[in-house]
């Protein structure tokens, strides 16, 4: 085979894509459609979520994922090419995989589709992480503390990013739809090229560019279709929507996206060295990339992600417009903080935390904000995290009341210092998590920690 074409329909499953772009993509006769369904970007909430916490609430499981899956399943099964999905449900845990698998089954039933589906799990047993930790085989990834056994115990769920190998195996076993748990972003895109013997460095680098959909085009979009064509010594990327084009700049720029080091893409089992890479304009809308080189690691390491439970959050949103109130804002907030601490002195102070975010001043950058000016109005976000939802709401309600009626010197607006856009003012948000594992773990085998389950759907 001289070339292989992989279609990336969208940046994240659920971000959508124009139907015409998918049709144009299919007209190019791709050999697979691959799509990334998750990221750590939305934060640890999705990794920490418990089955009881209404999976239906998860944006990643909602109507938009359903809306993307249906045309992708029909297109791929109709063309007899695989549909490869990774990082299911946002965080890629077992319940996330099962949630998306349910959607796939539902669509299959509605559309009368029959196919072989591979489910690849990515949750890692805490006992394995502890064993590896004792053996010195777990190391921090970036500016992260050394892992402790306590961290492992506190983590409510641990996933690992799988490499290409489990996807390759599922393809070898004839899966038509592959639904993977947490995966390295390029893995879904690189699996078929690597299975077919294309260069690993080029395959993974192409995957890295394809995984965000048309973000690597101009104008960029996380919700549009990009086609990757891999050949023996280079690959091409081209958007399927005629309003976009790939340029050397847009594609080179994307090699930098969300990576701390632009010269090296660190992947399970090795690194793609980009120091010899070159980008060239193939046609007006298509870019040729060559020179990316895979360097195998001496030991295979997988990236672990874990989240610990912190507490429950309640928030209150309010605006401040009165100039005198704005002039006394810090005094009001500090006064409210002191009164709230007095009021809840029966609670262990370590069990709750109160945050004020002042939008229009430093709400976006906090202590790093270099500007000190204040807008003519500010938005105030009051946030409480406590060990129970009830406590969080009570504390939030009390704190907002203290600010609302705070009497500062020279106050003329004596009926209230806050404008609330909403009722109720205090909104229970639910559990809060924190990433507490972000480490590399040495493993002996790239496959055994990512078990593959084959299912015949519709038969």
């Amino acid at each position, binding site marked *: 085979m001289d070339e292989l074409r992989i279609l990336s329909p969208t940046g994240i499953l659920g971000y959508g894509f124009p139907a015409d772009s998918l049709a144009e993509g299919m007209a190019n006769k791709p050999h697979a459609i691959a799509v990334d369904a998750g990221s*750590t*970007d*939305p*934060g*640890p*909430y999705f990794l920490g979520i418990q089955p009881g916490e209404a999976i239906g609430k998860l944006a990643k499981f909602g109507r938009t994922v359903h809306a993307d899956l249906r045309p992708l399943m029909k297109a791929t099964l109709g063309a007899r090419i695989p549909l490869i999905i990774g990082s299911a449900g946002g965080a890629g845990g077992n319940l996330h995989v099962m949630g998306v698998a349910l959607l796939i089954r539902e669509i299959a039933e509605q559309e009368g589709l029959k196919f072989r589906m591979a489910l690849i799990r990515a949750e890692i047993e805490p006992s394995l992480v502890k064993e590896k930790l004792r053996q010195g085989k777990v190391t921090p*990834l*970036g*500016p*992260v503390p050394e892992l402790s056994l306590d961290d492992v115990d506190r983590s409510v769920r641990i996933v690992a990013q799988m490499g290409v190998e489990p996807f390759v195996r599922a393809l070898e076993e004839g899966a038509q739809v592959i639904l993977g748990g947490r995966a390295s972003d390029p893995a879904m895109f690189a699996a078929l090229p690597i299975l077919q013997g294309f260069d690993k460095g080029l395959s993974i680098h192409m995957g890295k560019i394809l995984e965000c959909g048309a973000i690597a085009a101009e104008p960029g979009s996380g919700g549009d279709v990009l086609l990757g064509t891999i050949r023996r010594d280079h690959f091409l990327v081209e958007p399927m929507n005629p309003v976009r084009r790939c340029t050397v*700049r847009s594609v*080179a*720029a994307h*090699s*930098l*996206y*969300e*990576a*701390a*080091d*632009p*010269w090296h893409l660190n992947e399970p089992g090795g690194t793609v060295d*980009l120091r010899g*890479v*070159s*980008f060239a304009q193939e046609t007006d809308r298509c870019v040729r990339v060559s020179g990316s080189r895979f360097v195998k690691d001496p030991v295979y390491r997988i990236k672990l992600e874990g989240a610990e439970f*912190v507490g429950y959050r309640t928030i209150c949103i309010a605006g401040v417009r009165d100039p005198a109130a704005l002039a006394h804002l810090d005094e009001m907030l500090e006064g409210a903080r002191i009164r709230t601490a007095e009021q809840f002195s029966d609670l262990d102070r370590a069990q709750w*935390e109160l*945050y004020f*975010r002042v939008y229009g001043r430093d*709400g*976006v*950058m*906090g*202590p*790093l904000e*270099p500007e000190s000016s204040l807008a003519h109005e500010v938005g105030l976000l009051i946030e409480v*995290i406590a060990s129970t939802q009830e406590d969080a709401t009570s504390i939030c309600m009390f704190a907002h009341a203290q600010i609302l009626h705070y009497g500062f010197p020279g106050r003329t607006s004596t009926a209230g210092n806050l404008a609330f856009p909403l009722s109720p003012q205090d909104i229970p948000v639910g559990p*809060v*998590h*924190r*990433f507490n594992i*972000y480490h590399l773990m040495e493993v002996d085998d790239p496959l055994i920690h990512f078990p593959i389950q084959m299912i015949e759907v519709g038969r």
Partner: protein
Amino acid sequence: MTESTVCLADLASVIRSKNAGPFVITLDVFFKEGEVFRKVRDAGVITKASLAELYRVSEDDILEVTFFEPAEALKISIKRWVSSAAPGDTDVFGAQQHVPLMSLSFDLEK
């Protein structure tokens, strides 16, 4: 300030920030012209020390400063002061932490 003093926002076509994992924020600057990219790179004014001062963080928290020739781009990685979405975080995706960089100014004629 002399007349030849410029700020990064004048020279760049893209200045952006984003998480690189939950513990690092990465800043990318793409220059309007390759020549300007090389001038800025060779001027040696964008360093861990100058960035630490700009962001008011310790120099150790500036993890990477790299000029990436293939894209004529500057990449900076900074340790997050609080991990993504941990209590106290203000920017879960890290997408709005690039602004101080825009006003970083220097004299290219020197």
